[in-house]
């Protein structure tokens, strides 16, 4: 069988920087340029447009929407609450992730480990509406928890478990926990088995070993997980809308309402860019801390 031989030998570059590779890069880059970069730029431009009383976009520019975002008590509160809820979710996820990751890593039976992986990852492959819906079924007035409590005789009237921030946070934690467990489990699994043994040989019991050896060495995985959970929670609107109701003071809900219900796109744009920048800044800071730790301990 004949195959195409490259006629210009200089092109047979084993370093990989061939024309072919550049050509392969093109379609993906073009797509992202068209549907990520350009929309991003246009969004910034949009956010600077004024609107008239009828919420029609005017050809003039100003920072009015940003001023509104940063001076309106409602939006400041929404941003603050969003960040606070995201941070709390991240912390809770990390705390719960430790026992879950430890169980995953220390399970010897391959069958059980697969079961745990299925429990961890299959939620990530189902739609977020479904995961949220399950909580509604659990927490609704005639939902499962109320039903069980009532039949056990512990309560007379059903508890109002939905429509508050606590329910939102519980749902957030359950929905995003796998994102915290997986990187942490990776980190935990990478700790050489000799290290905890060395610690014990020096006189440290399980507790001391965990605090002074295991925990510090899981910082990269823990930070990765925390960053992902924080970013996801900060941008979430479907879950809090369905569980907490439209009145929850969360910025993503406000953005959704401004865009699709009130149709004030420029304001929605300004709010979403604000959210993006603040979230990126915090995530960037956490990432920087993580990189510095890794450089100090591993040299890269």
């Amino acid at each position, binding site marked *: 069988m004949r195959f195409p031989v490259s006629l210009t030998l200089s092109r047979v570059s084993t370093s990989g920087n061939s024309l072919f590779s550049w050509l392969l890069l093109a379609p993906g880059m073009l797509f992202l340029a068209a549907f990520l970069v350009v929309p991003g730029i246009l969004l910034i431009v949009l956010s600077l447009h004024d609107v008239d009383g009828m919420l029609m976009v005017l050809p003039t520019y100003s920072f009015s929407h940003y001023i509104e975002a940063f001076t309106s008590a409602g939006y400041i509160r929404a941003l603050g609450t969003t960040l606070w809820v995201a941070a709390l979710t991240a912390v809770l996820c990390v705390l719960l992730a430790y026992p879950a990751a430890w*169980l995953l890593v220390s399970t010897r039976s391959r069958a059980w480990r697969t079961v745990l992986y299925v429990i961890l990852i299959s939620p990530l492959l189902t739609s977020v509406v479904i995961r949220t819906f399950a909580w509604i079924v*659990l927490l609704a007035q005639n939902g*499962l928890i109320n039903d069980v409590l009532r039949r056990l005789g512990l309560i007379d009237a059903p508890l109002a478990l939905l429509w508050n921030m606590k329910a939102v946070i519980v749902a957030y934690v359950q929905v995003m926990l796998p994102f915290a467990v997986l990187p942490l489990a990776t980190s935990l699994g990478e700790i050489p088995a000799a290290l905890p043994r060395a610690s014990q040989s020096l006189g440290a019991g399980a507790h001391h070993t965990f605090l002074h050896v295991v925990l510090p060495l899981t910082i990269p995985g823990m930070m990765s997980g925390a960053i992902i959970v924080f970013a996801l929670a900060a941008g979430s609107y479907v879950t809090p809308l369905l569980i907490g109701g439209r009145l929850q003071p969360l910025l993503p809900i406000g953005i959704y309402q401004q865009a699709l219900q009130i149709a004030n796109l420029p304001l929605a744009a300004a709010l*979403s860019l604000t959210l993006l920048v603040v979230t990126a800044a915090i995530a960037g800071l956490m990432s920087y801390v993580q990189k510095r730790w890794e450089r100090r301990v591993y040299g890269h």
Partner: protein
Amino acid sequence: MATDRDFTAPVSSIGWRWLGRAAGGLVYLFLILPVLVIFLSAFSPGAYPQFPPESVSLRWFQAFFDNRAWLKALQVSAWLLLVVTPLTTLLGTTAAYALARLQFRGRDVLQAFVLSPLIIPQVVLGIALLYVLTGMGLSGSLTGLAIGHILVALPYAVRTVSVSLASMDRRLETASMNLGATPAYTFRHVTLPLIKPGIVAGAVFAAVTSFGEVSVSLFLTAPGTVTMPVRIFTYIDQTFDPVVNAVSAIFIVLAVLALVLIERTIGLTKAM
């Protein structure tokens, strides 16, 4: 060796160990609780689930298949899946290969850029796309939805193919090109077969992501282009329909099947 994974020796601290395991077990129970609830409800004869369950009924599954609106939503989601999956896999594979083989300053930045849709808040992606697609006259159309789905699913495909590329022996490509084959030929006959697991896993991720996508889709749909998850959203928001339980149960089963597929190809531990 059997003792390699012991974090505490068998002779010590057994109490801590079992406490840790119990705590871990509780967390997994917490994780799986909603799934159990859904299955309980999907098969329960009444509108609300009973625990312990009294009997099993398939009426909600029946109701789903009898309902025109649900079937239309299924059709829309299926169409999108069939279009989005191959396109995403194609874009993802080519991008992953190029990023793995090219060396230039700023390559790492570009890599991060390609993965960025994963962490950009989907509400921001939704608005940006809404604005641009409206300007192109595509807002509310299937094409617009497809674009949105591809954008969200692309990072997954890039990631799985990158994993496969990283574990592949590069010298095989070098050997092929030393024998005179062009890079294109090498890619088709050497690389592609070797990274097939990553491509398949990427396709599975793309399909599952598209089928379940809602956060961006809500900005891009119109009454004629309602996907399954969007319909579920509006339904939960406005009414209570137990058919949603049945639909959810189907979604979960599909997710587990997808998981099995991914495990068979590149393995779960490396995919995430």
